[in-house]
């Protein structure tokens, strides 16, 4: 563990896309801080903006406003030349490795490429590094002479991870890295990620729709809905005492492989609204079982709860709500 130093600070980041007759607020006023060595989870349902947030942080899409401080340097508006130099420290792994591995190239060439681009070593040292990396991700070094289609989904994800960490980046964004994999393979990849984090001192920003997966690997978790973070907390606390009604509903909706241990289900009706026409006030209020009149009018600000949790919900405003949770 590298410890306490701040690796990433995202401040009031917003990314909006113009569409016919309007604007989609894909990411809206997102702020969080990630320390070095920490695995930060971003969780939410489809369309909540979690993938756009990841791409906005890496400057793969251009944010509309806000700051992304990576080790103190604001990446938003950085010159192309300086961004290129920083890229080696900021890598991404995608859900579908097949879509990101060029089928015409051998694994050896795919893995060597980032080394070539960043002028790393001689051909012989690069080859040796590729072989060592293949072993590190649990593949045979002879894989270097084979092609992507010769590998299973789990093996291809190992290759995708190997490529991302070839240059020993400081931050690896993992965008649904195990969502396309079967359960038994998913567990293998999650353990591999944990091992690599340990041995290489990596920091992960882990994007997923799967709460149980996020719980297994993340130190802290932020829950997104309609482009905003509604709650952020250390993993144990988020799962034990969700502070936002949406988090609570999300957790209660996940079917668990424990018959009989069925919990009280918080049923939310409807589906997430169209991000082109987000509701006034709190984005979750139309589906919230505990919505109050104020929720329809005013978007709640992010509030620190004093135990490391932050939540954007009027229920936690002592001026509006007394201790019983009633207003």
């Amino acid at each position, binding site marked *: 563990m590298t410890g306490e130093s701040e690796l990433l600070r995202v401040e009031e980041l917003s990314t909006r896309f113009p569409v016919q007759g309007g604007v989609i607020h894909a990411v809206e006023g997102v702020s969080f801080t990630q320390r070095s060595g920490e695995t930060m989870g971003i969780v939410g*349902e*489809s369309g909540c903006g979690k993938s756009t947030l990841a791409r906005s942080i890496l400057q793969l899409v251009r944010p509309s406003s806000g700051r992304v401080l990576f080790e103190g340097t604001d990446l938003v508006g950085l010159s192309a030349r300086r961004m290129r130099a920083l890229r080696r420290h900021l890598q991404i792994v995608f859900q579908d490795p097949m879509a990101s591995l060029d089928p015409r190239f051998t694994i050896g060439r795919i893995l060597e490429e980032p080394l070539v681009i960043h002028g790393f070593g001689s051909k012989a040292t690069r080859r040796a590094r590729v072989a060592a990396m293949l072993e590190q991700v649990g593949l045979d070094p002879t894989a270097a002479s084979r092609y992507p289609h010769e590998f*299973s989904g*789990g*093996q291809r994800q190992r290759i995708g991870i190997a490529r991302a960490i070839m240059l020993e980046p400081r931050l690896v964004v993992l965008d649904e890295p195990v969502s396309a994999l*079967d*359960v*038994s*393979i*998913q*567990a*293998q990849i*999650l*353990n591999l990620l*944990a091992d690599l984090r340990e041995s290489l001192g990596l920091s992960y920003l882990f994007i997923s*729709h*799967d*709460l*149980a*997966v996020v*719980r*297994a690997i993340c130190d802290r978790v932020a829950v997104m809905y309609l482009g905003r973070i509604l709650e952020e907390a250390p*993993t*144990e606390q988020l*799962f034990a005492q969700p502070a936002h009604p949406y988090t609570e*509903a*999300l*957790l*209660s*909706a*996940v*079917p*668990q*492989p*424990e*018959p*009989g241990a*069925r919990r009280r*289900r918080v*049923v*939310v*009706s409807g*589906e*997430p609204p169209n991000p082109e026409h987000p509701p006034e006030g709190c984005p979750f209020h139309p589906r919230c079982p505990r919505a109050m009149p104020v929720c329809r009018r005013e978007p709640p600000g992010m509030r620190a709860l004093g135990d490391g949790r932050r939540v954007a919900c009027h229920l936690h405003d002592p001026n509006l709500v007394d201790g019983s949770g009633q207003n």
Partner: protein
Amino acid sequence: MSLLEVRGLTVAFRSEGRFLRVVEAVDLDLEEGRILGLVGESGCGKSVTARSLMRLLPEPPARIEGGSIRFAGNDILALDEAAMRRLRGDRLAMIFQEPMTSLNPTWTVGFQIEEALKLHTDLPAAARRERSLELLRRVGIGAPERRLRQYPFELSGGLRQRVMIAMALACGPDLLIADEPTTALDVTVQAQILELLARLREELGMAILLITHDLGVVAEFCDEVAVMYAGRIVEHGRVADLFARPRHPYTNGLLASTPRLRGRRGRLPTIPGSVPPPDRRPPGCPFAPRCQRVLERCRSAMPGLAGDDGHLAACWNPVR
């Protein structure tokens, strides 16, 4: 007698000039009004099994090599196409992961439901419309008059799945086959659809065969479960028994490697290796190369399903 009785179902697919078995010697029983989960990882043969029951497999490349399927007194594999079509709309219905594959994008919701009613009932036009509205209400769709006039693309994923369920219910089937019906949906919407299916089972008394990869969905929704691995059923039992005391090492490993919302966090137990493709399945038990309880005989002879009190496992060395 069971509503559905499958014995020794074996299905092969033609690939590069030879037939590869993807489903082998599958036995299934489903009583009226019960929910059976057929669970397994990709390529295990669960969807092929489901489509065989509906006779929806394209032949070729598929070929049913053996076994029998009896449903409500019908010998499914012996029926001609006309009789099968009648049965499909009438007593046997199926819904899929992606509703858009079974909804016609150029027809309104109302037209599609009424078409189904026209084919399978002798209701007059006005009664068909009334019944369509009733079906949409039954699956929890508000403002059904408006929905009848909409096209599938105008609906959200959850609403499309509800429309598909409404169509499947059009004639009050005895058995609904649901192939990963909530896999493409967000978790809050999945919970709504599973609750709807559970309610419909109560109200209509239909049986459901649920095909899924999700052990959580099985635990919360099904009465019984059959676990498939590499084309075979490796374990079968009541949900409470199988989850509490898995007997097959594959089921055991699968449950252990599933991340959870409660309990211990961190490193997950894993099953080493990966599922062998159909052309590289080993002789004997297909799980033997990955199994920590493997014995010498596992590599040469496939065990049959055995056990007591309805909890069966195909294993020479079951977990106790």
